[in-house]
């Protein structure tokens, strides 16, 4: 479904955020993307969605990620960005939630109905009519996830979906993620989250893929994790 070959992302000033990466994601996969701060996780997502210039090739459902194909590719990708503050641009939560579906032709009533379901699933119905700039950081994160679930995308990219969430909301998000049939890529340092939601894991360090493998193969390997700036998940007996 996603085929990445020789992907390199270089920012101004010669910083190589990603250095010739190869990665394949199959339909229905739930892939965890782990790596220390600055490893290149967000850059990978931005390249995938055509928000950042890159060299190499990314194929999405057989379509090259190039300018011409972006509108149709983006229709199938949901991207929960790391900074949920910047994810929301409409005044109210509900307005933000229906923005995407209405743009793609859903009627407003249907979109609101769908929004109600998703709000309920995420247990945040009380946020529906609140203003985006007047809700807390964690609430914003939940709302941002809700706006993306609205799109029913074929692939969802989650960038740190549980940062700033309390344990209850973190659990709700994990359950919600597990309840989605879409293909998922989840970038996080929260390795317990990755363990609970992903079957496959890709470990990146300084812009290079160190290892791709089954969840248990990677998340139980203390040496591998520690040499790449991470620690064993708590549930695996980490500190």
């Amino acid at each position: 479904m996603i085929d990445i070959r020789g992907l390199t992302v270089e920012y101004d000033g010669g910083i190589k955020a990603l250095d010739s990466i190869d990665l394949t994601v199959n339909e229905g996969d739930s892939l965890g993307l782990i790596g220390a701060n600055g490893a290149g996780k967000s850059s990978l997502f931005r390249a995938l969605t055509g928000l950042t210039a890159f060299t190499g090739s990314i194929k999405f459902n057989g379509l090259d990620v190039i300018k011409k194909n972006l509108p149709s590719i983006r229709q199938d990708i949901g991207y929960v960005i790391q900074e949920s503050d910047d994810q929301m641009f409409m005044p109210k939560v509900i307005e933000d939630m229906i923005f995407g579906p209405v743009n793609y032709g859903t009627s407003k009533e249907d979109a609101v109905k769908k929004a109600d379901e998703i709000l309920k699933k995420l247990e945040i119905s009380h946020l529906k009519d609140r203003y985006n700039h007047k809700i807390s950081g964690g609430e914003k994160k939940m709302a941002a996830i809700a706006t993306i679930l609205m799109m029913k995308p074929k692939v969802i990219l989650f960038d740190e979906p549980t940062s700033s969430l309390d344990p209850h909301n973190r659990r709700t998000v994990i359950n919600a993620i597990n309840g989605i049939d879409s293909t998922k890529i989840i970038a996080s340092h929260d390795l317990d989250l990755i363990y609970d939601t992903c079957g496959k894991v890709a470990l990146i360090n300084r812009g290079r893929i160190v290892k791709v493998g089954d969840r248990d193969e990677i998340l139980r390997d203390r040496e591998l994790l520690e040499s790449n700036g991470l620690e064993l998940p708590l549930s695996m007996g980490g500190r």
Partner: protein
Amino acid sequence: MNRAREASSEIRSVEDLSKLDSPVHGLSPLSKLLLTIVFIATVASFNKYDIVGLFAMILVPLLGYMISGIPVSTCFRKLKVVLPIVLLVGIVNPFLDREIMFSIGSFRVSYGIVSMVTLMLKGMYSLMASFLLVATMPIDDLCKSLRKIHMPKIIVSLLLLTYRYVSMFLDEVATMTESYSLRAPGQNGIAFRSWGSFLGQLIIRSMNKADRNYGSMILRGFNGEFYYCDRVFSKLSWLWIPILIAACVLMRIFNVPALLGSLFVR
């Protein structure tokens, strides 16, 4: 509260006003825009000594405020920062133009005082009218109608984003000044030597923020069209707008207060 934070929440609360429902809100955005432009142009064109004629012009915005249900005081409260600046514009006129125009009892009113007052009024009216426009017209609706008359997408999107970025920018200012003052306790404002880097940071950070924001818009299907705006505007918009425009022009040409006065005082 931090002044920048306050300003951004003021802007946002004006956006709330624009979502209310009233006959004024129900008018097509373009007709209101046109009317506002005509009104401001008319007001600006008044002779600087024509204080009486200018007085009458307040009727137009007042009518708007009354029908829309937005108290005039809201306008003055929200604009309390800019209002003094507008009112200060003509402050030197009384010193430059001392010739006496008329006197009320023993109080002599010079041409300078009159022109100062007209300038103030012109500024105030323009502010009142612009505020009413913004407070009765959601920005997205304006953008949508601009698209309807085939204004290029790029210009319309620019307008929308600029509007959005004002509050985003202010938030950024607030966050930065807050974190600055947390690490520079006892300092009043920002030390002069830090201005350069502060401003530079501010611009870069706002640009990054804007970039991410725009990114999440296009990822959710935004392509310069405004499908999500579905307010239906009153068909009467284009009927009574010309009437009001005509009224503005008439008030400009004829001295309405004097005419009315001569009707009653025979």
